[in-house]
């Protein structure tokens, strides 16, 4: 019988058993360790991934919020500036109106200088005659101006005939008058009242206001600091 093939005695069997058990145990421990190490790695990776994802989202959200806030700020700023501009424009407009209104009430004083006023009437009539170039013209005046007007009509007709070498009949309109609260001036009509020229003081003031508005603005408020183009 060879040494190798001898059956093991009890002690040897026990030893072998212990060795095998230890081996099995050792394998398990190592496997467990591997699993744990891997688990820790995965823990780190997974946690970092989750945090990174969310933090990107958070960043994006706050960037958006910041941008919103800035846009809102710009809008508010723009509104405030607009309001300010409107305030200034309104103020200027009000002052313009005040000037015009006061001028209207000054108009009433014009006829107070009789001599000057008669001259004005004459020229107003003459201006109308030159525009109408008609043979028969009626003149509408205030009741209180009738006498002065007759005088003015004489002079105006004379001028007209001399300048144009044409004849003309100019009469005061007996049926129509300017209202008593009018400041003065004349309305001329011809062709049976179908053509009218309004040369009253009020009408002239309105026209003057329109024509002179740019100049008046500059006179009243100075040049606009923002204007870049001039013709």
């Amino acid at each position: 019988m060879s040494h190798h093939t001898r059956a093991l005695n009890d002690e040897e069997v026990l030893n072998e058993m212990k060795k095998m058990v230890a081996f099995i145990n050792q394998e398990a421990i190592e496997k467990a360790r591997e699993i744990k190490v891997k688990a820790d790695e995965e823990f780190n990776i997974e946690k970092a991934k989750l945090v990174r994802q969310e933090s990107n989202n958070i960043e994006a959200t706050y960037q958006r919020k910041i941008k919103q806030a800035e846009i809102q700020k710009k809008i508010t700023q723009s509104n405030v500036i607009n309001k300010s501009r409107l305030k200034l424009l309104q103020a200027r407009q009000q002052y313009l109106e005040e000037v015009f209104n006061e001028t209207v009430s000054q108009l009433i004083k014009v006829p107070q200088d009789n001599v000057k006023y008669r001259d004005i009437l004459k020229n107003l009539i003459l201006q109308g005659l030159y525009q109408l170039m008609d043979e028969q013209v009626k003149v509408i005046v205030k009741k209180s101006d009738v006498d002065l007007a007759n005088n003015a009509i004489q002079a105006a007709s004379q001028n007209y005939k001399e300048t144009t070498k044409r004849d003309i009949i100019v009469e005061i309109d007996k049926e129509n008058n300017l209202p008593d609260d009018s400041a003065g001036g004349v309305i001329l009509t011809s062709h049976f009242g179908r053509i009218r020229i309004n040369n009253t003081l009020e009408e002239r003031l309105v026209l003057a206001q329109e024509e002179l508005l740019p100049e008046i603005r500059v006179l009243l408020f100075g040049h606009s600091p923002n204007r870049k183009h001039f013709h």
Partner: protein
Amino acid sequence: MAHQNSQGIQTLLEAEKEAAKIVQKARQYRVQRLKDARTEAAKEIEELKAQRNTDFQEFEAEHAGNSDQSFAKLNAETDAKLAAIQTAFDNNKNAVMEKLLAAVTTVEPKVHTNVKVPE
């Protein structure tokens, strides 16, 4: 001999059982770790959010302060301009009225250029 064998096998089977328990524990640890990753990530994320929020609120507070300032400044400027307009008006009103009245009362009658006047 047969009895020894079966005892031996028993011991080995128990060793395997124990081994399996050890590995199972490790697996449970792994599962727990994955859960932990989620909860800890969530915690960190909350902290980040809170921090970002605080930063943002500081930012807003600073800007609100700024815009209050510029708002007040603009108001002051507007009031100054209004006062300037008032002054300009007071100074120039009469000149404008005179200009207008002059335009009304200065009449220059002119014959239309197309009118032919016989010699």
